[in-house]
């Protein structure tokens, strides 16, 4: 049973990673990256790693997308 969950989680992560890379606009990538972080958290839970899942959730859904958006805003604002 857990095998099925793992296969689904791994496939979702592979598809999610491809989607993040194939999104061209960086501001959309911030959103996709946040979603990819949640998919990774689910995979880490399925792999019986709660510490790692907590770490990925805290970092990948709040910290990194926020910084990507701030960087994009600064780069755009500085140029206009």
């Amino acid at each position, binding site marked *: 049973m857990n095998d099925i969950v793992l296969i689904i989680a791994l496939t979702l992560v592979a598809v999610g990673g491809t989607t993040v890379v194939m999104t061209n606009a960086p501001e959309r990538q911030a959103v996709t990256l946040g979603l990819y972080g949640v998919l990774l958290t689910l995979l880490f839970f399925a792999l019986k790693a*709660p*510490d790692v*899942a*907590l*770490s990925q959730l*805290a*970092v990948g859904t*709040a*910290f990194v997308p*926020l*910084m990507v958006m*701030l*960087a994009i*805003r*600064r780069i755009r*604002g*500085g140029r206009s």
Partner: protein
Amino acid sequence: MNRNARYLLFFAGGALVAVLFAWAALGMPSFGSTFHPYRDLAVPAAVAHGTANVVSAINFDQRAFDTLGEETIFFGSVIGAAALLRPSKEEREQTSGHGHAKQVMASTRFAGYVLLPLTLVVGFDVVAHGHLTPGGGFQGGVVLATGVHLVYVAGSYDALERVRSVHVYEYAEVVGALGYLGLGFAGLAIAGSYLANVIPYSGFGQLVSAGNVEVLNFAVGIEVSAGVVVMLAHFLEQAIVLRGGAEA
């Protein structure tokens, strides 16, 4: 090199990497096997030192020196980002007021009021119980730092600036890093090896157990939360204050 040459080079290199990786992966123990020699050694060692969360024991007790290296990388990155993002002379002169806050929705503000103390308490809990339940200094530190920024989400940038003075957090980060180093030297003085577990670690599953792991968790929690706040402060300053726009 133009794009086509770059693609060609990548596909050649990528194909080689894929072949080597597949060859190596097929030679590894199959997924889900029972052959884990490190686990057979690490779990009894963690239990012998009274730590219920084996992952925390590995991070702060058995391989505490590696965690010292990791937090030094963290410290260095915060310094590097602060140095890169410091305002240049022209930017400092054009720091116009960042205007008044756009109206925040009442529901957002209410959610901020409710969630801010809750997040801070949960962050402290995650740091303090790192040796008993999943958690620890790194995770709890990030939760604390993003909790502080709920003031910005539910309020305005001015409110955040009043609540968080960056100097305090810079000093706090240094205190955390020095605390980790200092405890290591205490281990050297008492037990003869750097970062040895010298605080008494009797009891298993109690709040006061696991010796060094608790105190190092606190040191790392202070350092990571202060570091994340400082880093976000520099990014926010660049994106909001120095942009020259009128939004907050």
